Every structure is written in C-alpha cells, then in structure tokens.
C-alpha cells in the first residue's frame, strides 16, 4: 500500500533549540495514525507543518512532506492554500476558540462550501444542514442560526468536525480533538470521528496524548519524545508489547481505574535520563 502522506527526515527548530529531529512518518490511505507524546514532544508541530501553519519562530530545517506527489514544504503558498480544506483539513484542538465568536454557525459552515466548492448560498445552506445532521446535531436549522457561545463544547466540536469533513478531504488532521471536552462527551465525539472517517474513507492523522483514545480509534501509532520518533507500529502490538523503555513507562503511567489504590507511576528518572542522552547524541 502506498502512503498518502509521506514525511521523510523532517527536522524543525526554534530559537530555543530543535523541535523535530529527523522524523519519518507515513500514513496509508484510510488508516488512522496516532501521534502520541507528552507536551512539547512535537506532535502538534508535525500537524501544523503538514498544514503549512507553523507559528512564527519555528522553521523547518530539512525534510519533505509528500502528499499526492507534491512536497508540501516547497509548494508555493497559493498552491498549498488550494489544497487546504479540500484535500487536507483540520479538526482543531479547542472548540471554544476555533469558531469565530462574532459569526453565526451557518455563515461559518457555508463559507467553505461557497468559497471553496463554489456552491450558491441556498445549496450551501442545504448542504450545511445535512452536514450538521451527519454529526448528529439535532435541529440543525436552528443551530445554523446560533452563535458559537450559545452552543456547548461538544456541540461546537461537532460543528468543527462537520466543517473539516465538509469539502470531503482525503486527509484530516485531528489535533487533540477531545482534549478540551469532558470525558462523557469525549467518547461520543471519538465515536463520531471514527464513523465519519469510515463513511468518507478519510485518512486520519490523530494527534493526542491520551493512550486510551489511541486504543479506541487508531490503527497505527507513532510515539514521540523531544521531537524524535521512538517507536512506530500497529497500535495493538505496541500496547501489548512496547519495545522502547519510554513507551513502556508511558503505558505504566496510565492510571488504572480498576485498581484505584495503586499510586500513580510517573515516567522514571532513569528512562528520562537515557532519553536525554539519546537526544543529545
């Protein structure tokens, strides 16, 4: 199977130091690849590099991100913009701030349909209603009239999911889509993303720090630390028998709800020290 997104030797740095170190990552068509790591591991940086929305101060120093035969890193802005939304889309991290507070849901949802897919206002409206229906929002016509602050966090994330799928992109990058939601809503949203992905046959790059989420929705996973890929493989295998000591420690650190009396286990200092040495080498 040929990869849809092929990232090779990707390195990036900021003024403070390296952010990504020679990352290699390929995502196959229709699969869900998890990017796992703690804060600062570089998982969001990879996602943003693919979308060309790296914050100022972070520069890619080497590497390729190949998508549909084109290197996204050397693609002119104009060409890249044509692909965004239509070929690659984003489900953002924070549903509370990722919708424009001053505009109605309907206007925000139809923007992409009208400006990118060339629909007229009425068709776009009908399509937006259908999209909200797809993400299981009840009474979509009413919701289209609402402002973001009138919706709950879960509703907003559903709207953002609808928006990401609205132009039927081949790849969707989900940047910690459930982190800002509470646990009960998380589950529904995860199931929704999974169903939508299957229906649309979308390839999903799923950024998260939650191993439970990985186990639920992802096919393969990449474990990152300090911008370096530590381990990569099928989710079931890695969760079953992690090879890298950091991955082992990460799995052990996951709280066990069935054994609440057990104290939490942080990643041991020895593992971290070994990692630091590995990174500086």
């Amino acid at each position: 199977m040929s990869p849809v997104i092929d990232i090779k030797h990707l390195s990036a740095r900021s003024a403070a130091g390296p952010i990504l170190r020679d990352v290699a990552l390929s995502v196959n068509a229709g699969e869900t690849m998890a990017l796992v790591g703690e804060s600062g591991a570089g998982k969001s940086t990879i996602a943003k590099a693919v979308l060309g929305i790296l914050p100022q101060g972070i520069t890619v120093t080497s590497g390729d991100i190949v998508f549909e035969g084109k290197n996204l890193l050397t693609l002119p802005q104009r060409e890249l913009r044509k692909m965004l939304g239509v070929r690659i889309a984003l489900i953002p991290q924070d549903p509370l701030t990722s919708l424009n507070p001053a505009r109605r849901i309907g206007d925000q949802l139809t923007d992409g349909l009208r400006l990118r897919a060339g629909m007229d206002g009425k068709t776009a409206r009908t399509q937006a209603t259908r999209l909200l229906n797809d993400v299981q929002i009840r009474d979509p016509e009413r919701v289209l009239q609402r402002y973001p602050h009138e919706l709950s966090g879960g509703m907003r994330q559903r709207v953002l999911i609808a928006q990401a799928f609205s132009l039927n992109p081949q790849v969707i990058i989900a940047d910690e889509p459930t982190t800002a939601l509470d646990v009960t809503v998380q589950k529904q949203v995860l199931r929704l993303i999974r169903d939508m992905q299957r229906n649309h046959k979308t390839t999903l790059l799923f950024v998260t720090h939650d191993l439970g989420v990985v186990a639920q929705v992802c096919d393969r996973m990449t474990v990152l630390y300090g911008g370096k890929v530590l381990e990569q493989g099928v989710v079931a295998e890695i969760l079953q028998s992690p090879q890298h000591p950091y991955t082992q420690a990460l799995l052990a650190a996951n709280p066990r709800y069935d054994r609440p009396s057990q104290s939490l286990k942080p990643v041991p200092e020895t593992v971290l020290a070994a990692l630091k040495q590995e990174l500086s080498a």
Partner: protein
Amino acid sequence: MPKDFRIWLGGGFILLLLLAAIFAPLISPFDPLEQDLLSATMAPGQDPSHIIGTDSLGRDVLSRLIFACRIALTVAFVAATLACLAGTFLGMLAGYLGGWWDATISRLIDIWMAFPPVLLSILLVAVLGTGIHSVIAAIVVIDWTRFARVVRAETQQQARLEYTEAATALGMSRGTILFREILPNVVPVILVLLSLEMGIAVIVEAILSFVGLSVSTDTPTWGGMIAEGRQIIYQAWWVLVFPLVTLFLTVLAFNQLGDGLRQWLDPMLKR
C-alpha cells in the same frame, strides 16, 4: 437590547439633534439669518416669541442654534465616518499583514501623532481654504490615526486566535480571513471609537468656526455663535451660554454613547 442608560440617554440626545437638524426649517420659530435691530439682545423670556432671546443683531438664538446643528452633525457624521474608514483599513492591513506593512503604517502613525492636532487642523484649513469640505478633510487627515492605532492592535490580537488558524487551515485567502473573519470581531471597537470620534469632530468644527475658519460666517455654527457671544457677554450672556451648553451636551452625549457601547459590546463583560 442594551440596558445601559448611557446608550439611551446619549443616543436619544443625538437623535433629538438629528431630528432638529433635518427639520430645522419647520421647527425653528424664525429665520436664523433674519436681522431685527429693534429687538436686539433681548433676554430670554422678554419677548415670548424669542424663547431664549436674540443676539446683537436681533437674530433669534434658538433658531440659530437649531440651524447650527446641521453643520455640526454633518461634520460629525461625515468626517468621523471617513476617518474611521481610512484608519480602519490601514490599521487592519498593518495588524494582519505585519512585517513591512506594519512597520510603514506604524511609523506613519507615529509621525502623524507628533503634530499638535488643533494647530495642524488650523494650518490645513488655512491652506485648503475655508468651507465645510475643508473642515471635514482636516478632521479626516488628522484623526484617522486614532482608528488606525486601535484597530491595528485589535487586529493583531484577533489574528493570533485559533479561529483565524482554523480558517487558514480551511484554505481561506488572507483577504477573506481579514474581512470575513477578523473584521466582525473588530467592529465593536470601531463603533465605540466612531462614537467618540464624532464628539471630537464636533469640537474641532466648533474650534474652527470659533476662529472663523469653518463655513462662511453668515451660516450659523455653534463655534461662530460662541465667538459672537463672547464679545457681548456682559450685555447678553444668553448668546454665549446656550450654544456653549448645547456644544457641551452634544459632546457629552457622543462620549456617553461611546462608553455605553463599549460596555455593552465588550464580549468579556457580557459573559
């Protein structure tokens, strides 16, 4: 519906002035230019038909006050709106595009604000010649910086928020993001500034007509009336006081409206 009484009070007073300006020929008891030297400097109430008296040429003060609304409000609305459009456009460009654009526009603002505004406006009108167009031009040329500065800062802040990033990831062009995504979030600030700027425009117009640099002297203006009243303050205080009070209340109304709008539109305070 805004609950803030300042919006209703300020807005109500401005609406009243607006109606007075539009229907001036219908509601003013006399022709504002009609001289009647036999009934000069009549005190308020001395003649029931001249409710707030007459000036040194026997012209009805109330009628002149009402007609002067026309110049004041025209200048306030037109000049403030034009300054707003120019300043907002440049401010948004500077705030969103950053880099070279920001550097150029910001330096321009800095240089502009180094000039003393009143002197600059007098100079401008002296060069452009008197007349309402010159007054408006002078205000626009001087006061666009007020909008540009604030809108630039606000745009910068909005551009860093995640909804802008989300729109970029959806493949929206920079123009679309600036005018469809960011502009609606900057509008509240613009409205507040616009209201305050109208008050400032009223003052500037009064200053210019006070020194005789506004419209021709036979058109009644508040500034012109104050200038005339100043000369006969010991004989006829009402010629000075009424336009002064009207001017004061008008500026106060615009400021209160602006402050009220700020409270009402501020999303942080609303939540």
